[in-house]
């Protein structure tokens, strides 16, 4: 059986990659993709802890809720990106510096 630490390290690497993308990307959709990477890293952690530390299914239920919230987040964030694109004719985050539309 694969030990717990391996899962945690792979998920930490995935989290760091997501963080890197979050900080470097200019395109709003790419930033969203990086956020999804971070969600997946957190989910792998939850499921790994659910199996190795908790020994029950609580972590899996939590991960299921995270997936549901991620779907909400993607839908609303993409709607915001759409209206941003309609206003600015681009999805570059550098242009989006004002809250007022």
């Amino acid at each position, binding site marked *: *059986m694969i030990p*717990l630490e391996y899962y945690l390290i792979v998920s930490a690497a995935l989290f760091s990659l997501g963080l890197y993308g979050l900080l470097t990307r200019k395109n709003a959709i790419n930033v969203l993709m990086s956020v999804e990477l971070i969600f997946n890293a957190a989910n792998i952690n939850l499921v790994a802890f659910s199996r190795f530390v908790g020994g029950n299914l609580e972590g899996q239920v939590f991960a299921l809720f995270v997936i549901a919230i991620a779907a*909400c987040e993607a839908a609303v964030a*993409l709607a915001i990106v*759409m*209206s941003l694109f309609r206003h600015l004719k681009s999805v570059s985050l550098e242009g989006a510096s004002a809250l007022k539309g």
Partner: protein
Amino acid sequence: MESLAPRILFWFFAALMLGSALIVVHGRNLVHSAFALLATFFSAAVFYAFLGADFLAGAQVLIYVGGILILLLFGVMLTNRIFDVNLRTETFQVAPSALVAAGVFGMLTLLILKTPWRQVSLVEEGPTTEKIGSLLVTTYLLPFEIASVLLLVALLGAAMLVRRRSDL
């Protein structure tokens, strides 16, 4: 000595996941990034299957690959000119971000290796769908209902946000 096959599979999918995640965050082409994200999500589903979470692996494929990824691709297609073959995307402040990400990874790894995890030895195997289902309507009934309301609100909010001004 346990068999080697699970270990090889684990590291293969770990490499696939991290390699495609690297393309997602560092690729030049937006559509390439979206398809690399597909490989990342699938590898995460394989990890769930490794961890005995069969229902979650199915949900991951259904919701992430079938829902969120398609949504992101729609976003790519609607916010860029489709006939523009190379949808370029830029990066900036690469060096400090790489430093921060590497620092976070180093600290997390140190933390993971130093911590004495209190592991349980007995793990019940078998399908999890029925147990998760009964947990959702007993212990986690309130979060379940709140999640459904949240989904409804997100649906209405997203529809309202993308509506054109003339429809008001």
